[in-house]
Every structure is written in structure tokens, then in C-alpha cells.
């Protein structure tokens, strides 16, 4: 079933934020598909790079749940082929940044028992804070 999309200011804010972080004019994207066609990791991605561009353009924040930006290896194949000279890998990086800035804690410190706190290496505890990247 088709998803019903509401175009609203929150979506515009999301687009503006990604454009600012990436430095790329995402609204320039022509949806020609060159990036997806050339991507060496396309088979591993749940959402195509061109679809990422599209979803960000229409302000669909749920694109943040996609795996694609974590699979992107920044090999720049898309970047050197895009007929509009957009740097898609920079957009992926911007999305990663947004996710990291959400600062989600993987563990709740209150729920760690004294026993666990004693045996866990401190680096593991530190690593669980604000590093959850989905």
C-alpha cells in the first residue's frame, strides 16, 4: 500500500540540515540513477543511493533507519559519475553525522549491576555511551 506523505516544515528542516552538513545541493538531483547503477555495494543496501537522495529531498526522516549510509564505503564512484556533480558520499556522511549527534546511549547506567560494573572493562562501558549507530 502506498505510503501517504505529508510535506511539512519539519521535512524542509531535515533537508536543509542535510544540505548544510553535506554541502551538496540535494534539490539538484535529477534522479537519473547513475549513482545506484555504479555502486559496487548496491546488493548489500536496503535503499539505493538515488532513493536516499529522493527521500531526503522530500523530507522523509525515516530514511535515517536505512542501512545504506553505513554500507557506503565512500569509494566515490557515484561522485565521479554524477552528471550534476553531486557528491552522494558526502550526503551519506551527513546522514551518519546526524545519527551520531542523536547521542543515543546503548546502556542505562542505572541498570548495570555492581557485579557487571566490576568485571566489565571500562572501555566497553565508555564505548556503549552515545555510540549506538544503528
Amino acid at each position, binding site marked *: 500500500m502506498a505510503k501517504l506523505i505529508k510535506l511539512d516544515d519539519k521535512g524542509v528542516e531535515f533537508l536543509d540540515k542535510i544540505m548544510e552538513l553535506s554541502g551538496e545541493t540535494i534539490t539538484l538531483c*535529477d534522479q*537519473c*540513477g547513475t549513482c545506484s547503477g555504479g555502486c559496487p555495494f548496491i546488493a548489500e543496501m536496503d535503499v*539505493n543511493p538515488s532513493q536516499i537522495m529522493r527521500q531526503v529531498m522530500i523530507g522523509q526522516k525515516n530514511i535515517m533507519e536505512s542501512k545504506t549510509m553505513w554500507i557506503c564505503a565512500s569509494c566515490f564512484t557515484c561522485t565521479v559519475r554524477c552528471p550534476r*556533480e553531486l557528491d552522494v558520499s558526502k550526503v551519506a556522511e551527513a546522514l551518519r553525522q546526524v545519527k551520531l549527534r542523536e547521542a543515543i546511549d546503548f546502556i542505562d547506567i542505572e541498570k548495570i549491576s555492581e557485579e557487571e560494573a566490576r568485571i566489565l572493562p571500562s572501555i566497553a562501558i565508555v564505548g556503549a555511551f552515545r555510540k549506538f549507530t544503528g
Partner: protein
Amino acid sequence: MKTGVYLCQCGGNISNTIDLPKIAKHVKEKKGDILIQENSHMCSGAGQKLIIDDIKNHGLEKVVVAACSPHFHEKTFRAALQKAGLNPYVLEISNFREHCSWAHKNEPEIATEKAKDIIDASIAKVELDFPLEEKKMQMGDEVLVIGGGIAGIQTSLDLADAGKKVTLVEKQPTLGGKMAILTKTFPTEDCAACIISPKMAAVQDHPNITLYTNSEIESIAGHRLHFEAKIKKNPRFILDTIDMDQCLICTKCVQECPIEQPNYWEQGIMNRKAIYIPAPHAIPYKYLIDKENCLHFKDGSCSICADVCPQKVIDFEQKAEFIDVAVDNVVVATGYDIYDATEKTVFGYGKYKNVVSALEMERIVDHISEKEPPREVGKRVAFVQCVGSRDKQIGREYCSRVCCMFSVKLASLLKQAKPETDIYIFYTDLRAFGKGYEEYYKRSQEMGIKFVRGKPSHFTEDPDTKQVIVTVEDTLSRDIIQSEFDLVVLANGMGLSAASEPIADQLKLAKSDDGFFKEAHPKYRPVDTLVEGIFLAGTAQGPKDIPDTVTQASAAAGRVLATLAQKEFSLDPVLAFVHQDICDGCKQCLNECPKKAISINADGKAEINEALCLGCGSCLASCPIEAIDLNYFTNDQMYAQIEASLSNKKEGEKRILIFADENTVYRLADACGVRKMKYSTDSRIFRIPSGSRMTSNLIKFALSKGADAVMIGDSPEKSSRFAWANNVTKENIKQVQSALNDLQIEPERLIFKEYSAGELARFTNDVDAIAEFLGTIAPIPNETRDKLFTAVRGE
């Protein structure tokens, strides 16, 4: 010398604000022996008669009319002067209405004071005005058309039919251009060769057309309505006689020639001999020898064609001929080249055997129904759009306009000839813009051609089958297609032809951002160039399909006819000139003129070619001793009017002198007046041909004589008649600003602004901002003004 000053009331429009009797008194006191008249409507028949009668009865030699903007009635009053036997250029218009009574409607007293300055400036200038003659140039009816494709053919035929003498030069050995290579044409599917052949023949047979094929423009130069070209007619190595019976086209030479080369008119899918006729429909239908590949020219080992020729018409010694022509107009129809896809390495064109260009496919499709076609296409065929168009990576951001339709056409023709072929067209946006095009596109879908929205990222080649593997996202299903094709056809975009480059250089034709020739105006002068007398036809100006090319070619012919129909061409006398007694031949001005109108004469002094000069005044700044000057805006006249306009300035008053280019900013100020838009009454507006006329000396002089700020206004480069002028203006301003810095005067007193015609509020705001700024700073001390004066005029 007697001057007449006419004050127009404009039915109250002027006289209700400006106290005209007070102006009359002021002029009388200042000038004494001067004739002053006041009239309700100077532009009326009665007003004009007043001037004419006074010239006759009182022997007036100069006339000043204080009325509306010169853009309304300067012509009227010039005609009146002419009727009375005076030269039309000894007239000055004081812009009392737009620049004063309307702009400062609510401040009648200050407006009257401003009007005094305006009329004083006009009187000072008119005293130095001198008669100017409009030079007449005769026009003939000779036209040179460069390029013998469909555009050049159409223009030539239209002109020749209208009785003009046309010289048509084509680089290739046959007429027809790219159209002669095409198979059928969209959307009607009539054969290209069949529709162009009669036109090619008509060119050859037309008594008014002299045709040079296999010929190039060796050199071309000229201006406005006189161009001289040297045509290089390359040898065909066949005796060229008027008697066509000499060569019998018996084909014996071709049969015997041992050399095979790819034939350009078959786009390399078929071969030809080293002696050949380009195409079955070639015009002229004559042999030529390909010197690059003929064994006789390589090592002298073969002359078999000459040996077997029964008529003995082969002449290996034939040399290039040079023909000089002089023409009145030139039409540039040098056409396009397709994008060289070898540059786009991801597509493997030139490397993979089964990746072909669009023009190659034209020939493949043309032969596909033959029993043994020179090239088979296989089962599955892909067309790939936007190769060399809409691609920033290769510096071509424009759409080539025709590729969508020619791919639809080639696919349709192939499908009709070989219905079993499985055809896919990979596109980004499909543009079916012309008459019948959308319907044609729909018919191709009905035939079963599949349109897939996605731009292939790259191709690879199966090393065994030589099939091409295309990887592309189907952007509508979001799935990745990776599939083998027996043939991939690239939709090569258009670019300006390489053969156009030397023409562009020699004729100094401008190009637009897309690299094609630039038209004088994209909307209302689409076939003119910025060089008068040179016109554009066809794809040299931008990508076009055949109907648009033919339309534009006829339009170019129409523009040529309109130009030549004038028979005589009068040059505006507002042109640069050189004071021969002052010029010391330092040559600094030579490179300043973008029209190359300045040269050094036999006396070693600079000289202006009046036919080339456009009168912008940019060259004046380059002369360190003011030897170059500009008619009607001479240095003496400018100094005099600036000084006079500042002569009434009282202690504590401020003056902003605004020098406005006559085409844009002066009219903009007029429009502000028409709308009664208020701006600072400190302003005094002067008309100049372009901002670049304001030499650093003039600006310094204005400041030395009492100006507190100087503003120069001009149109933006893009819409200016003088695209180069603003850079000159900026340079002049920079010079003065650094001088001001040294004298510890605020450089902000000097402002250069660009306005387009509608920016009225921006203009008035800017003027007010300067006035406000002047209120915040101390006046220029008198000793500093003296220093500036000394810098300009000496002790």
C-alpha cells in the same frame, strides 16, 4: 556666436514646480547676450516654429531646449534645427521635467536651484558643440554563407531567390552537412536524402549562387557591412572544367583503385576507395582523390586511376586555388559536431565493438533491410540517452534537444524493419517538444519499444560474445538492471563544430556558456550576432532539429534582406576621434578597443576606423594625454558642463554628480521622474554613452570643482551594448579611489553601480544613501580640491 535658450512649461508640468522666469533672469545675468524664450509646449508645431524662426531671424548658431528628457523630443528638436539649416548636433536638451520638476515636485525652490545648474551645464556644453556629420555607407547585394548543411542551403536559396548574390562555402566535398548522413527524419519518417537532395541540386543550379565545396575560409575579416574573405578551394585532383562531359563517371578509376578507407558518409560502416564520390546524392557529383591515403601521394607507387581513365581528367599536380571575395553580409552556418564519446570512458565507445554512435546507427538502420546489411544489430538493443548532454562532468550542462527524438526514431525504424528486436531506451527525462513528436513517441511505445527511466552508470564487454553488459538503475522500480545487449547506441549530444573555431576567432564572434555562437539577444535578435552584418543560422547557434534549423535559416536570410534593403547605412556620428596634433603615437590605446577600431596611421599616430567604432568611449581612459576623444561627449565639453553645473554651489551645500549611461541608467532616472519618485535634490544627472567614458581625470575634475560624490551608473555587462565597458569603468574608479586615499578623502565618495531597467527604487535608494553618507562626513577641504585640480590640469 548667438545661443537661443527655450524654456518649456510643459503645460505646467515644469512651470508649476520650476520658477521659469527666475531661470530666465539667472541665465540673462550670467550670459548676457542670449535669446531666451518661454513657451507652453516646445514640442508642438508652434514651439518648433519658434526655434526655426529665431534661427532664421536672429542668426542663432546654438540652441538649448529646457524641457522633457532628450529621449522624448531630442529627435524632434534636431529635426527643427535641420529644417532651419543648422546642424542637428549643436543642440542641447536640459532635462527639466523627468530629472527635476517631477522628481522634486514638492520642493519647488530647491528644484529651481537645481534647474539653474542643469541649464548652466547645457549652455556651457552647447557653446563647445560643433557640427557632426552622419557618414553614409553604401551597401551592395553580396552575401557570404559559411557552411553548406541544411541551414546554409536554406539561407542561400532564400537569399538567391530574392535576387542577392550568394557565395556558399562548404568544407566537405559535397553539400548536405549532417542531414545528408541521416536515414529518415522524425516524426514523419520521410527520407532525409530525398528531401535534402532537391535543395542541394537547386543550390548548384541557381544562377545567383556561387558554390565552393571542398573549400575552406582561409581568412576573413571586416566590419559592419563590408567583409573580405579568402576562400581556399582544395584540389580534387580531377580536371575541373565547365564542360561536364570531360569526366564520364565511368567508374573505371574506382574499380581499379587498390585503397579502401572508411566512408564518412556511411559513418565508417562501409568503405570507399581513395578516389571516390562521397555519397550517391552528392552535390557536386564529382570524384575526388583522398590525398591522405592515395598511394600516389604516399610513395608515388600507384597511378592506376590516371592510367585507366579514358578521358585523362586525373591531375595529380592540381593545387589549391585561392579566391578573394568581398561581401556586405555574412551568414555563419557552420553547424555542430556530435560529442566524441571516447571521452566518456565508462561507456567504452571505440573500445567495445558493439557500442556505436547515433550517427553510425543512422547508417546501420538505413541499410538494415538490405539482403546483406553491412552491419547486423542482433536481438537486444539499448539506446542510451544524454551521452554528452546534461553532464557537468564533461562540461556540457545543456540539453541537446534532438537526441530523445532521434533515438525514438531509430528505435522505431529498427522495430519496423526487424520486429523481433527487443529494444530498450534508457532515459533520464524524455523531451518530445515539437509538432507531432509526442504522438510519435507514443506510437513507438505501441510498437513495443520499452522506455526505462535510468541513466546507465557504465558498460562492460563480455569477452567471448562481445555483448555489452549495461548496468543501470530502473529508477521507477528501484531495481538494478544488469543485462547483456547485442548493440548499444549512444545518443551523442551536439557541440559547436570544430570547423567553427577559426571563423569565431577571425570574426570575433562571442560564444555563450554552452560553447555555441551567441546571438545578439536571445529573445528578439535571435539570428543576429553582436557584430553588425554577421548573422547565425542553424546549429552553430545551439542544438536544433531540422524544422527549427530551416526556420532559423530563413530568419537569417530575412535579416540579411532587411539589412541590404536599406541600400545605404548611416553611421551614428557619436564616435571616437584622435586629435592628430596631440597624439604622440605611444600606442597605449591600441589594445583597449575590443572592436579593434584603433590603428596607427602613416604619420605614426592613432586613428579611428569609424566603421568599426561603436562610440562607447572606453578607449579614452587609455590615453595619458587626452589625445583620443569622443564626438558629442568630448573632454572639453565634459569639463565645461561639469564646471558650469557646480558653479552655483553655495557654502555648505552638497552635490552628487551622477553620470548615467544613456541607454539604461539615464532612462531609469527618467522613469523615476515619470513616477514622481523622490530622491536627493543634491543630485545632478549627466548623460554619457557608457560609464567607461568617465576617465579618471574627469572624475577628479568633478571632485576638484565642488562635487562631493560621484556616481557612475551603467547597465550590467549581460545586457549592455558594450560588454567590455564595465571593466574599464571599474578600473578607472579604482585609480581615482587610490588617489583619494592618498589625499585622505573617503573613497566611498566614488560609486559605480549597475542597474537593469526596472530597478527604480534601488536607484533612488542608492542616491539617498549617498546623500545620507555625505551628511555624516566632513566636506572636502578646499586645499585638497585644489590638489585634485592640479593633478588634472597642472598648476
